[in-house]
């Protein structure tokens, strides 16, 4: 079944895919892209890498130039590290989750093929001492309740090493449903934009003067991002990094420190915590956006990130640009993005790949 636009995002966000446990996401991605690509493979660490062969004017069939568009596909989550006698699951965090957002949240716990519902629980507030109430409860003092009454019962469904993700349905909300909220927007918005890019290239019969590779990569929420492996295999001449950029456009945050804002378009970073993007190509990207009437904004700061640096180092050095989509409440169960920003990223990708002269 093929999905488009917001429905595509909804389907992708629904899939279970904490870092390192992405089978359902991989399957969904492959199903959505098969008609639009020439070839694909899943590499040893689970990245999905697809290829669209070039054929346009200036295409060098013997020694084609290679352009890589890279995004993450995994989401933050938890990993079960102990099952107590009473059937409670103790866990560690996978990815950069603020423990303050965990209490009482619903989860999916399992391994992707089978997941059961659960919730995050901790010592009840009325049992906490005054001192405990003042302090932040760390994740190690919380547990996941899947409604099991003993270790044996719990182990019918999960075991040490099982993973969990938030269980928040995708929903559009706000005036004219201009906003969307869901878990996993941090990576699946990028996946959706790239899927639609591939389809637009196919349906528009666009001939590119280079081989276009797209990589949906695993472990993008961890320090050792698997994108490195994909980049090392593809060895691109140029790379475009599609990833979420934290929008701190909340009340009380000075404009100078909010990084980017929802509704302002593609968030283009000049540098982040692990990569400095190519100056001239970034200027070219901005000019392309302006020419095509696509909204862009600069990421005002150098946010923490892994993806760009992983690609650059994996490729043994490559020029890159960054196309970010602003997301509020990153790494929480209620990530918020704006529909118009999504389309801006998708359209700028489509406009820019046609302009790259590699």
């Amino acid at each position, binding site marked *: 079944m093929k999905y488009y636009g917001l429905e595509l995002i909804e389907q992708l966000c629904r899939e279970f895919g904490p870092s390192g446990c992405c089978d359902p996401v991989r399957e969904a991605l492959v199903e959505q892209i098969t008609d639009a690509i020439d070839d694909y493979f899943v590499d040893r660490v689970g990245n999905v890498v697809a290829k669209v062969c070039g054929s346009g004017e200036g295409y060098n069939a013997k020694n084609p130039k290679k352009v890589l568009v890279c995004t993450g596909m995994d989401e933050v989550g938890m990993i079960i590290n102990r099952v107590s006698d009473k059937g409670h699951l103790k866990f560690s965090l996978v990815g950069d989750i603020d423990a303050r957002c965990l209490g009482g949240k619903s989860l999916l716990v399992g391994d992707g093929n089978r997941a059961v519902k659960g919730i995050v629980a901790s010592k009840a507030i009325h049992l906490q001492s005054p001192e405990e109430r003042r302090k932040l409860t760390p994740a190690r003092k919380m547990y996941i309740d899947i409604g099991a009454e003993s270790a044996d019962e719990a182990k019918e469904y999960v075991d040490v090493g099982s993973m969990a993700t938030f269980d928040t349905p995708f929903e559009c909300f706000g005036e004219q449903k201009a906003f969307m909220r869901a878990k996993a927007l941090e990576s699946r918005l990028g996946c959706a934009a790239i899927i639609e890019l591939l389809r637009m290239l196919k349906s528009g019969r666009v001939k590119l003067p280079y081989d276009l590779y797209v990589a949906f990569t695993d472990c993008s929420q961890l320090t050792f991002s698997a994108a490195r492996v994909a980049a090392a295999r593809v060895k691109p*001449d140029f790379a475009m990094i599609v990833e979420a950029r934290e929008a701190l456009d909340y009340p009380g945050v000075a*404009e100078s420190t909010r990084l980017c804002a929802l509704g302002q378009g593609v968030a283009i970073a000049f*540098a982040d915590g*692990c990569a*400095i993007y190519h*100056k001239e190509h970034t200027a070219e990207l901005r000019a392309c956006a302006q020419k095509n009437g696509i909204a862009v904004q600069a990421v*005002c700061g*150098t946010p923490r990130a892994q993806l760009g*640096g992983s690609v650059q180092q994996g490729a*043994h050095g490559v020029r890159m640009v960054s196309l970010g989509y602003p997301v509020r409440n990153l790494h929480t169960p209620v990530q918020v993005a704006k529909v118009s920003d999504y389309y801006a990223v998708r359209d700028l990708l489509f406009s820019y790949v046609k302009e790259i002269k590699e």
Partner: protein
Amino acid sequence: MLTKLKHLVNVSGVSGREAAIAAKISEYMTPICDKVYTDAMGSLIAYKKGTGEKRRKIMLVAHMDEIGFVVTHIEKNGMLRLAPIGGIHFSASAFSEVVFENGQRGVLVPETGVKPNDWTYDKMVVDIGAKDARDAEKRVAIGDFFSVAPNVIKLSARRIAGRPIDDRIGCTIMIEIAERLQEEPCADDVYFVFSVQEEVGVRGAGPAAEQICPDYCINFDVTGTGDTIGAKPMACELGGGAAIKVKDSSVLCHKGVTDRLVKLAKEKGYKYQMEILTAGGTDTSAVQKSGTGVKAGAISIPTRYIHSGVEMFDLGDTRLCVEITLLYLHSDKKE
């Protein structure tokens, strides 16, 4: 050597924006090397073919980038907000003149009333003398890189202070070595790599080494000293000779290479000291881990007040770095 250093210091090259400094260095290297080119990340690679039959590949590397800042936001009154590029000590860079790539000047100052202990990047602004945001936007843009103004002060016949000594002094040493190899050619192939983006986490030297696949590597960078008041104990001082690296926090140098450097220095009676740096990383680690591993060592320039506007080093130490490296290049035994 000092003239050369002055030339290099006066060209800006914040991490990720090294094109100008690369062009300057290639002016020196192009006439005396067989091939000079830049890689995808912008590292400048100068290749000097050896005269021998069976030639090994020796990579010499120094980073040409310097720490700096990037404009992140323009306030309504025309003041600029910034983020650091590399390891900035804000107490060392407050109240300094800064220079943008396009030549625009400004001053880096903390917000009024913020105490020195709280001077972090989000409490600092750059005043470029703009009357409002519109005026500022005519002269700089969000995403522009800038650095504290370059400076070289000759304090005595041997002692120099200024910035960015880290690591233009390493670049100067490499140019000097290349020039000397013109007179006395080396049997092995030598690759001079002027790497990018060292200051943001050794990102450039690894990719360069991946392409070159060297047999041996020597890195030139500054190292800390134990000879300032209040310094942590460290047996390394200005004027104590070239500092042959044993380790820093990113690398354990190849023992064979280190021992060979020491042996050669000892034989000639060149002054040297062993460097054991407990904090800070260098390109040595990135090269060592490239490909299937590279035998890498480093010769460092003892430097006081690193990452400030008055980084201080000794010219005598620097000359010894050149001499010991030349001995190594001409030595048949590399380890």
